[in-house]
């Protein structure tokens, strides 16, 4: 069985972002970001292409250094202990040049949370139990994304960051991933995801952060956002109009 054996019971959310700005080549990509991710919530970051959604996710994960502003994790600064309690699923999954099981074993060797039964149990959960010995990079797009999620689940994260986890996936993979997201959240994992799929955001998210041109225009509960968006940009985005 998959044993819950979390390393530490210290919670890392709520995550508070204060006056965060990220610039690249003297151009601001994220500007003056202020928001809060609630503990055990599912927050969907919405916005058009190039709005800065993925960058915000990567910054929360600690992949992009914060030079201006501040991110705190339950009032703590980002350190290795906090980073070890996060897991990120990238939009284009990076898989090691090994078998499916080899990929899982590598993550397991870093975390030492689970044993070999757990690995196979998680692979079964994502529907990859028959592919243990298959080279990971020969999997289809949906299977790769599921393996990437399985690796993330192996860490037993308290914060799960998902960058468009179901983009271009078939309905089976989509349903499976969404069910796993809900299951993880029900166990107390805080989840932040970016998506372009409005119906997915409605199905999963409790909170919405709407971002455009590197600025947060709205942060509210999902039901309020979809019913009564406050900004013209959000209204346009929801009706499928191009945002300029």
């Amino acid at each position, binding site marked *: 069985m998959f044993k819950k054996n979390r390393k530490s019971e210290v919670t890392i959310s709520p995550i508070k972002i204060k006056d965060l700005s990220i610039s690249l080549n003297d151009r601001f990509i994220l500007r003056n970001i202020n928001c809060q991710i609630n503990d055990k919530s599912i927050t969907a970051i919405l916005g058009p292409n190039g709005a800065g959604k993925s960058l915000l996710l990567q910054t929360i994960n600690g992949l992009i250094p914060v030079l201006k502003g501040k991110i705190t994790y339950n009032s703590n600064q980002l350190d290795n202990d906090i980073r070890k309690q996060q897991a990120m699923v990238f939009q284009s999954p990076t898989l090691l*040049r090994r078998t499916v099981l080899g990929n899982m074993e590598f993550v397991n060797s870093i975390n030492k949370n689970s044993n070999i039964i757990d690995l196979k149990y998680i692979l079964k959960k994502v529907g990859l139990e028959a592919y243990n010995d298959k*080279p990971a990079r020969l999997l289809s797009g949906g299977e790769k994304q599921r393996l990437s999620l399985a690796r993330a689940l192996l860490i037993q994260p308290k914060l799960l960051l998902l960058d468009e986890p179901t983009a271009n996936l078939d309905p089976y993979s989509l349903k499976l991933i969404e069910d796993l997201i809900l299951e993880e959240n029900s166990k107390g994992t805080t989840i932040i995801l970016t998506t372009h799929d409005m119906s997915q955001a409605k199905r999963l998210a409790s909170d919405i952060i709407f971002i455009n041109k590197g600025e947060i225009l709205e942060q509210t509960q999902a039901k309020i956002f979809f019913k009564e968006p406050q900004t013209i940009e959000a209204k346009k985005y929801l009706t499928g109009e191009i945002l300029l």
Partner: protein
Amino acid sequence: MNILLEAFKQSFDLVLMLDRDLFEILLLSLKVSLVSLLFSCLIGLPLGTFLAIKNFWFRDNILIIFNTLMGLPPVVVGLIVYLIISRSGPLGWLGILYTPTAMIIAQMILIIPIIVSLSAQAIEEVHQEYKYLFLSLVVPSHKAIKAYIFDARYSILTVMLAGFGRAISEVGAVIIVGGNIDHLTRVMTTSIALETSKGNLSLALALGIILLSIALSVNFLLIRLKIRAKRRMYV
């Protein structure tokens, strides 16, 4: 054309008759090449990995230097090693001139730049691919390095093959520091040079064919391995 046919016949005869001298030369060639390859890898692989994953001032220049050194003229290396280890040289007291050890040292100087440059390229490719994943997973450096080397293993095998090719076919440096002494430092390439100078062209060619066959077999095995790895998308 006749000389070629004769050479082929002679090479087969030498192998089939299990010529003792030939096998002695062959074994020494392999021993010198493999030992120099082993030590070059022990030095070159960590150095190549370091250059692949660390970003520091002057890194690119170091890589340019190693790339340039890949084309080092063997006779120049032979001459420099000779000057260093000859009796009047700074390491003359070691007394290794005209020994297989001197040949190994000369070959290492020729192979290390190849191992460093090509392994840096192979590992950098994997490093760029895994960088953000490893950062996100907070993978400790020593585990990341192990993973880079393991996942670039097929490319590294090709790097080693390039090093081995350079070593086994080398003649200029080993003839200067080894002296081509019979039963002591005579290897395939120096034998070919000697037989050619004696006018024994068919024997020289026969030795060349045997040398080529060894290189071909090693290449064939490794290429098969790489094709298999490519099918599994491990490269």
